[in-house]
């Protein structure tokens, strides 16, 4: 039903669940370890495409794979990957489910799964499914093939309670996106500090250009801006603690985030709550707006000929203590259901999906994202992909996204509170008190 309203390649409109401590550890480890893995992707060689899933004999028979890739490019790319699956004894049937429907029905889907292999998200969002025993422990796939080609950070993001449940597949990062040609023509350069950003905004507005394109229909886009301001100002750990309910929304540090946001808000397109992000991005494409805080997936709706003109920079420094040490980079991947009909084939296929070969094929058709495996052909990355991959690999901390880092019910409440703030910025104290009471009830 909702698919007609706003199909979105976004970090999901529907929330997800966190199991607090265990995943916090995972998220922390993810941050550190991605940095360690930084150099790996750059020096990958291509001889790693072993298919050793379950270790023993080769699998055969039919395997059903679920897909929520309802956008054209990713869908085509996934089909190409599965068509190229090397073990010809396995027949793969793809079960395509609409993206939003899939997420709304995930609990029912996983309790009586029609497919053996299914798409899902890393970190916190694994927890409710894994802890309920709905996913298969695929630690052996990691031991047999993935450990060698994926960095420790991605492994942690795939881990719940010491076992691996996910094969990381793609990721992308959030930042401020802009058109190089537009910025050249007005003589602007990416600001490094918040003060520079404010100055630039004032200057752009003086020239009659809207500084920030912004559409908050669906309530998640504002979460992206909030996350950036929050971890730039208060640091990664504060983000984690706030999402877990261990810090307060009425804390002065949280209020400071909204104070900064209120300074930036006049430089955003007006009336964001009723605008879809695609419409906001159109203003960016048309040059009516100069920049947009969004994920790399914004490239998916850029016309191909303009794609080279799209660039992005990390959200500027707000607090020297934290600099730009945190990147928001949601990871998507594949899981095997708890009781697959064809376990051998399922493990073999997810092992294959974890390889650079499979991910290269996917990226060659769907270039809006980056892939995690060592050996992924980074030379084929466009400038934006390369920059994003580089940022993620050199970041001290990686967050997933507000609605992937806390309880889904609470993410929904936060989204509503942000919409209230957009509508009435001066009422922020009351809004935050209300949000805090919800955090206490839910987290």
């Amino acid at each position, binding site marked *: 039903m909702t698919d007609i309203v706003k199909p979105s390649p976004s970090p999901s409109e529907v929330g997800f669940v966190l199991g607090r401590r265990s995943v916090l550890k995972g998220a922390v480890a993810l941050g550190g370890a991605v940095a360690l893995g930084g150099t790996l992707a750059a020096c990958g060689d291509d001889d790693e495409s072993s298919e050793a899933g379950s270790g023993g004999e080769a699998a055969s028979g039919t395997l059903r794979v679920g897909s929520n890739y309802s956008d054209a490019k990713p869908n085509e790319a996934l089909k190409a990957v599965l068509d190229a699956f090397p073990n010809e004894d396995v027949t793969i049937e793809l079960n395509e489910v609409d993206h939003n429907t899939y997420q709304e029905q995930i609990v029912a889907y996983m309790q009586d799964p029609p497919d053996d292999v299914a798409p899902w998200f890393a970190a916190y969002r694994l927890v409710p499914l894994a802890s309920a025993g*709905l996913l298969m422990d695929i630690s052996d796939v990691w031991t047999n093939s993935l450990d060698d080609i994926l960095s420790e950070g991605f492994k942690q993001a795939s881990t719940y309670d010491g076992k691996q449940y996910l094969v990381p597949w793609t990721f992308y990062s959030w930042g401020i996106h802009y058109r190089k040609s537009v910025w050249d023509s007005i003589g602007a350069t990416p600001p490094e500090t918040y003060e520079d950003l404010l100055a630039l905004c004032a200057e752009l507005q003086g020239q009659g250009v809207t500084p920030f394109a912004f559409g908050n229909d669906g309530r998640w886009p504002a979460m992206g801006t909030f996350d950036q301001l929050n971890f730039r100002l208060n640091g990664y750990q504060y983000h984690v603690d706030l999402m877990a309910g261990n810090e307060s929304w009425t804390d002065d540090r949280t209020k400071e985030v909204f104070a900064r946001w209120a300074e930036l808000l006049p430089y955003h397109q007006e009336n964001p709550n009723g605008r879809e992000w695609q419409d906001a991005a159109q203003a960016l494409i048309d040059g009516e707006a100069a920049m947009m805080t969004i994920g790399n997936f914004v490239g998916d709706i850029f016309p191909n000929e303009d794609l080279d003109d799209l660039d992005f920079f990390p959200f500027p420094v707000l607090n020297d203590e934290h600099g730009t040490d945190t990147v928001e980079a949601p990871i998507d991947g594949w899981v095997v259901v708890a009781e697959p009909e064809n376990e051998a084939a399922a493990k073999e296929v997810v092992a294959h999906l974890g390889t650079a070969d499979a991910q290269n094929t996917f990226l060659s058709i769907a270039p809006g994202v980056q892939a995690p495996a060592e050996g992924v052909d980074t030379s084929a990355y466009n400038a934006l992909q390369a920059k994003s991959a580089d940022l993620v690999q050199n970041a001290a901390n990686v967050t997933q996204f507000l609605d992937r880092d806390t309880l889904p019910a609470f993410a929904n409440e936060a989204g509503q509170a942000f*919409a209230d703030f957009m509508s009435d910025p001066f009422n922020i104290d009351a809004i935050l008190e209300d949000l805090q009471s919800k955090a206490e009830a839910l987290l």
Partner: protein
Amino acid sequence: MTATPSSTEEAVGADRADTAASTKKVGRLGGHGISQFTGTDRRVFLAMLLIPLTVHVLIVWVPTILSIGLSLTKWNGIGLDTIEWVGVENYDQIILGAFQTDFFQAVLNNVWLLLFLFFGPTLLGMFLAYLLDKNLRGSRIYQSVFYTPVVLSLAVVGFIWQNIMYDQQYGLATWAFGGGEAVDWLGNQEFVIEFGGYGLSKNFIAILAAMAWRHTGYIMVLYLAGLKSVDVSLKESASLDGCNEWQTFRHVLFPTLKPINVIVVVITVIEALRAFDIVYVLNTPRNTELLSILTTDNLIGEGADNIGRGSAYATVLFALCIGFVLWYVTNHYRNQESSV
């Protein structure tokens, strides 16, 4: 004129017996008639009663009672063994606790919707039906035009209102009323009428307009059917007696439409309570929540601890609906009985 409960029962009993009697072509029956039927008859009656009753109980009342039960629990929807009994905690949260602003705004929106449906689409629908009943040229075309929104699928309705009517920049509504400026029809959550943090928001008014668009045609068709069945001689005698147009409608036509009025009242109240679809496809911003929306928001997704809360919203909605139905049924039978 008020009937006592016992006489109501008797009347209903006699009514049933009369129906039974006429099918059987047996003479007049008293209040204790079942013994006069043959064994086969009784078995047929029993089957006709029990089969629909069983189906009804199974698909209506069992889920209802389970929902009410779930509203007293905390459950993430995964595995029956994770259901945890929490008593009235969910109700406490939504009525007195952290979620009360959402809850009372939603209840208030349901009330706005009810008032609006009565004073907007119902009156308009009645007026349109009255005009169309006059056999204007092309009245069939008008009928079809006004009725079309009722038969459109939800996907089309969502597209029409979100993208064609209410687009901020290029929407028809923006073009007609925006005066050259972009208008945030669905995102503007400012209150027009406000009291103590609750009120009627601008975007909810935009949604009401969309609801009216569909409800008017529906009401119109009902009244049109009613008007078509009014005996022409009534109108003729009214005009012979020198009634003007309004007097004819008020004192002659309207009273004959009583059965339609009853149906319209029921449809409108039920629609106001269970309204969901248009609001759901247009509901992105705040202050447009309805009880049905809060229920759904808490039930879909990969689950948190909120199926209990969703069920609590659903139970409140159910209580309002069943309250109306009970009140209505009681009154309806009373009036019918007293008018006999």
